């Protein structure tokens, strides 16, 4: 990964935001159309990895709002919390709770959606954690 390609760098500069937006799109519409947290997370991870190949793993880490291990932790906590919410209503763990009114752009929001966001974050975190560390492992 030492030889960098100018072409790739330029392409990635445009591609990465597009891929990230696409991944969020996949996540949001996942409940009703093809998509979901798993695919969305994988696409986002692929975007970051592409960036890491074009630039360097270090540069990619700098772009990340949270380090991969923290992404895993936050994702798992969100997924768990989305299930715990139902307990406060006196329902069994992970009973779905939905807002009455759909939000603009995102649509209907409920705990299953929040759960999917958790899945999304965990998948990104795990993929990046594995691949970035491997890429940095220069021995």
């Amino acid at each position, binding site marked *: 990964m030492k030889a960098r390609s100018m072409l790739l760098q330029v392409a990635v500069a445009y591609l990465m935001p597009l891929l990230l937006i696409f991944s969020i799109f996949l996540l949001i519409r996942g409940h*009703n*159309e*093809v998509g979901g947290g*798993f695919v969305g997370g*994988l696409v986002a991870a692929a975007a970051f990895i592409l960036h890491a190949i074009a630039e360097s793993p270090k540069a990619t880490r700098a772009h990340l709002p949270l380090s991969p291990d923290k992404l895993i932790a936050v994702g798992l906590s969100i997924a768990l919390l989305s299930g715990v919410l139902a307990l406060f209503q006196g329902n069994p763990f992970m009973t779905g709770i939905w807002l009455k009114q759909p939000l603009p752009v995102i649509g209907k929001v409920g705990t299953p959606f929040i759960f999917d966001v958790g899945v999304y974050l965990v*998948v990104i975190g*795990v*993929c990046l954690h*594995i*691949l970035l560390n*491997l890429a940095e492992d220069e*021995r």
Partner: protein
Amino acid sequence: MNVLLAITAGVLFGGGLFMMLRRSLVRVLIGLLMISNAVNLIIFTAGRLVPARPPLISAGESALQPPYADPVPQALILTAIVISFGVTAFAIVLMQQTYRSLGNADMNEMRSTDTPVEDEEEAAS
């Protein structure tokens, strides 16, 4: 088609098993990957093949209208694929570290887990 896919799954499984029986560590890993793909195909085929009817409720309907592809095996396989990626990564790194620390990738040389093998007879008893 299900006959064809059944044969594909069988060949993939058999091929993967053959690879796992090799002495080379890398071949064992590749065999593992092939088998996990084969198992996904087994589940997929056993859950019935329905062309061009994905399990999506179309607008205006309130439930899936038959015929539709069974969503249960699909949900199973979806997570299986993602998890097998995690397992693959783990196996690859495990293998890499093994090779680094042992300097060897021959399965037959890796028979002991906590003491170095010095004597074949001793290890066998």
